[in-house]
């Protein structure tokens, strides 16, 4: 059955930090031990190395010197052997014989040798001349040479020449006859007495071996050279010496000539010369007698070497001749050993140390693991318990075990677990409550956002970098930009130059101080058109919130209204000025009337009276009647003028409102009326506390007129009764003046308050018809109304109202109306 891999399986080794404490401790401890021991071993070997190299190199240098001694001994022995042979009388005789056979003329002698040599090289050995030479000169001497070779096996072949280089004896077959053109011959001959020549090892074809040619002059009885004896030394013997010396030790011996050619290599055997050492190595040993060091130049592997030049230490028994010959060879002996084998003991030590290190590391690691296990095991239980905590319904408790610290830890854990469980329960409840609250909040937020998005007012939020972070549809409409052109961009990008506007300054102020602001803003769009907006600016966490209402239309209406108002005010001013002018004229007129019109009337009346008084006896009854009528007419006109003046005065006079007691006023007037006709019996009923708010003197005039009327029209009523009071009439509280006089027909009620309107004849009831007109004007100026209710023969009631606060507008309107 398939089972999902557990986390542990997937993890593998993973991050070392996730390993258990025990593993970490063990590993760290093991690593520490390893590092310390490894460092120790490294330091030991490192400090030993230079010493080892120096010691070994010095030794090899000394060995090389020893090897050279060996070679010198060997070569010295061979030279000595040859010198013994050349001193033999037989040899000397052979040479002398050869020398003696040449013609005296050197030129002829040389020619005879060349001829023989040519014949030797070109002709068969059966040539009679050659045969003769072999038989006579060479083979006959061969026995002597062969004997020598038998006695001294290091020598493999001998050739004896005379003073001109012609072969006089040979131990084997010769390929040529004239040796004077050979290097060994020329060198040995040129060296004179005692000169020894040694060639570099060369491959001897005739012998099939690598050989060294040793040439030594044959000295005559007078000690002068008479010929040359040449021996061929097979190098095998010499190299065997070197091989033996090398194999006894663990080093190699190489022999290198002055040209850098490796003559011998003990590691490779004697028959092969091998590759030459590197130029670098050659340059090291060049020109030096001895030395040592480390190089890769000998065999192209790290080696420790010591070397010694063959000539340099040539002392002791070797004669000068030998030393000079060896110098010419320019050999250098190199003793070396490859580094690896040399340091094998060190490497072994290192290996041992490695093992010790590993074992120690493992042991320490194991110990650390064991110790930490004892600590981590309780911890692990704690961890497991803690892991269960997250899911456990009940609080997790564990047994108190382990050492003191662990026991304390466990107790603390148990306590914490208990607390955690309780806290967790509380948190769960809180989370649940919060979740519900958030759901509710989200719903309402969604509703709010929906409302915000679609509401008529523009709503936008701008962050402190002036970026639009929220705009609703209305903003896009007001701003004449689609929302996606606004969101995420800055105000300055969308409306360049906006930073110079008052609105921007207010936004800035709001951002800085957090103070809300309400303003009406005139906004000029990039296309030049202008819109008016009512803006409410408010700081919000995201930046600044703007609620905007487009009020362009309202602004236009307002402007029109303002213009109309200004127009109206201008007109009112003009009218008022006209009115004032008219009033002034009226005043002047009234003044004239009162003064100028009355004077003639007084004249008419006065002189008519004077006429009656002074000349009455000359007048008959008729004439006296006429004079009475003249005077009556004049007096009546005087009253008319007075009334007219009063009428105009009540309209023009300034008004100052105060609290007026109508009851008091009525009492005063009644007193005057009673005095004017003391005989009349009239009952007055005046309510107390009839208070109103109005101009005192005007109210007195009005009340006087009403009471005088009542007084006048009750003159024929024996039981006259006049009332002053307040009651409800026509649905409102009104003052009244009521009498039980003759009354009037309601048909004429409207005419009653007109100027100069009279319902009764002047004969019956004197009067000018101005009194009620005055009353109406006064009441209207106060913003009130006046009306009458009456019936013929049943008296009349005059009502008037006075608003508590007065009505200035109505007053003004009334004034205008009156002025017109």
């Amino acid at each position, binding site marked *: 059955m398939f089972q999902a891999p557990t986390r542990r399986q997937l993890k593998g080794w993973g991050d070392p930090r996730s390993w258990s404490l025990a593993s970490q401790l063990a590993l760290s401890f093991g690593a520490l031990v390893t590092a310390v021991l490894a460092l120790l071993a490294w330091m030991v070997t490192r400090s030993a190395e230079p010493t080892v190299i120096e010691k070994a190199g010095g030794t090899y240098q000394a060995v090389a010197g020893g090897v050279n001694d060996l070679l010198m001994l060997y070569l010295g022995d061979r030279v000595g052997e040859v010198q013994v042979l050349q001193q033999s009388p037989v040899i000397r005789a052979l040479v002398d014989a050869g020398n003696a056979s040449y013609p005296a003329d050197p030129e002829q002698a040389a020619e005879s040798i060349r001829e023989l040599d040519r014949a030797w090289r070109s002709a068969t050995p059966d040539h009679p001349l050659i045969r003769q030479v072999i038989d006579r000169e060479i083979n006959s001497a061969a026995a002597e040479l062969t004997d020598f070779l038998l006695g001294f096996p290091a020598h493999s072949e001998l050739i004896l020449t005379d003073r001109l280089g012609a072969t006089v004896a040979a131990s084997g077959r010769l390929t040529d006859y004239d040796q004077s053109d050979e290097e060994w011959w020329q060198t040995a001959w040129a060296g004179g007495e005692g000169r020894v020549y040694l060639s570099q090892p060369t491959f001897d074809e005739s012998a099939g071996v690598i050989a060294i040619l040793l040439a030594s002059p044959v000295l005559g009885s007078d000690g002068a050279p008479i010929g040359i004896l040449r021996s061929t030394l097979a190098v095998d013997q010499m190299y065997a010496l070197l091989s033996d010396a090398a194999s006894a030790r663990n080093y190699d011996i190489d022999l290198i000539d002055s040209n850098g050619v490796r003559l011998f290599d003990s590691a490779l055997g004697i028959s092969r010369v091998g590759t030459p050492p590197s130029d670098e190595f050659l340059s090291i040993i060049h020109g030096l007698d001895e030395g040592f060091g480390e190089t890769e130049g000998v065999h192209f592997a790290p080696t420790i070497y010591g070397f010694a030049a063959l000539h340099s230490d040539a002392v002791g028994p070797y004669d000068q001749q030998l030393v000079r010959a060896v110098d010419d060879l320019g050999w250098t002996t190199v003793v070396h050993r490859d580094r690896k084998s040399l340091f094998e003991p060190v490497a072994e030590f290192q290996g041992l140390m490695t093992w010790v290190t590993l074992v120690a590391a493992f042991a320490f690691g194991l110990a650390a693991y064991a110790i930490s296990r004892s600590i981590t095991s309780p911890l692990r239980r704690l961890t497991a318990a803690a892991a269960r905590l997250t899911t456990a319904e009940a609080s997790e408790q564990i047994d108190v075990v382990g050492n003191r610290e662990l026991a304390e830890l466990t107790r603390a854990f148990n306590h914490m677990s208990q607390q955690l469980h309780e806290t967790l329960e509380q948190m769960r409840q809180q989370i649940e409550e919060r979740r519900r609250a958030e759901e509710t909040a989200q719903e309402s937020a969604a509703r709010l956002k929906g409302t915000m998005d679609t509401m008529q007012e523009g709503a936008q939020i701008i962050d402190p970098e002036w970026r639009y972070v929220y705009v609703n549809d209305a903003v896009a409409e007001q701003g004449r930009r689609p929302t996606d052109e606004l969101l995420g961009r800055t105000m300055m990008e969308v409306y360049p130059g906006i930073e110079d506007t008052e609105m921007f300054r207010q936004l800035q102020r709001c951002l800085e101080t957090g103070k809300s602001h309400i303003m009406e803003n005139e906004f000029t769009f990039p296309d030049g058109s202008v819109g008016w907006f009512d803006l409410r600016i408010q700081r919000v966490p995201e930046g600044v919130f703007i609620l905007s209402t487009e009020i362009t239309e309202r602004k236009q209406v307002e402007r029109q209204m303002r213009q109309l108002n200004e127009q109206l005010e201008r007109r009112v001013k003009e009218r008022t000025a006209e009115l004032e002018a008219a009033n002034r004229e009226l005043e002047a007129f009234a*003044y004239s009337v*009162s*003064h*100028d019109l*009355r*004077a*003639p*009337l*007084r*004249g008419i*009346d*006065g*002189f*008519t*009276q*004077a006429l009656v*008084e002074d000349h009455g006896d000359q007048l008959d009854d008729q004439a006296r009647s006429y004079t009475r009528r003249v*005077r009556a007419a*004049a*007096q009546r*006109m*005087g009253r008319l003028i*007075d009334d007219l*003046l009063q009428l105009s*005065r009540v309209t023009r006079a300034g008004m100052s409102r105060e609290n007026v007691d109508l009851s008091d006023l009525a009492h005063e007037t009644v007193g005057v009326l009673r005095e004017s006709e003391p005989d009349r019996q009239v009952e007055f009923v005046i309510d107390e506390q009839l208070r109103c708010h109005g101009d005192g003197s005007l109210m007195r005039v009005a009340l006087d007129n009403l009471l005088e009327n009542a007084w006048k029209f009750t003159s024929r009523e024996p039981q006259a009764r006049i009332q002053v009071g307040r009651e409800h009439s026509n649905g409102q509280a009104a003052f009244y003046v009521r009498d039980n006089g003759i009354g009037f027909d309601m048909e004429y009620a409207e005419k009653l308050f007109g100027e100069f309107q009279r319902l009764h004849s002047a004969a019956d009831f004197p009067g000018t018809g101005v009194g009620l007109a005055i009353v109406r004007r006064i009441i209207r100026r106060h913003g009130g109304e006046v009306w009458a209710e009456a019936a013929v023969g049943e008296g009349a009631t005059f009502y008037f109202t006075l608003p508590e606060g007065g009505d200035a507008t109505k007053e003004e309107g009334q004034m205008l109306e009156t002025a017109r």
Partner: protein
Amino acid sequence: MKDGTILLVEDNPDDEELTLRALQKNNIANDVIVAHDGQEALDYLWGQGAYDGRDASQTPAVVLLDLKLPKVDGLEMLRQMRGDARTELLPVVILTSSKEEQDLINGYKLGANAYVRKPVDFDQFREAVLQLGLFWLVLNEPPPAA
């Protein structure tokens, strides 16, 4: 009736005649000086102009003053009188057709001692003149001579 002249300042000949008549009908026989404008009245009072040489210390008992006068009108004349030590205390009764409130106020402000409106009705006029005469010429104690 006591001695003492009456200075009547009146430009209207009808009113002048009627006033004199009223005085006469009331048996007020005091001398009446009539000036027809304010300047003439001041000249009389201060003994200057046409009245040059008149003893200004002889002041009338009362001045009956109309307001509407040619040249110097009544209120102006009153103001000048009150501004001069010789006439500042002289009793002045304004006798005029005007019943304008402003005229009343200004008259009293400038130092008028009484204000009487001339009625149209001659009987009433005569009654008023009688009362004036009784009061100012009989009852009233004039200010001490300057």
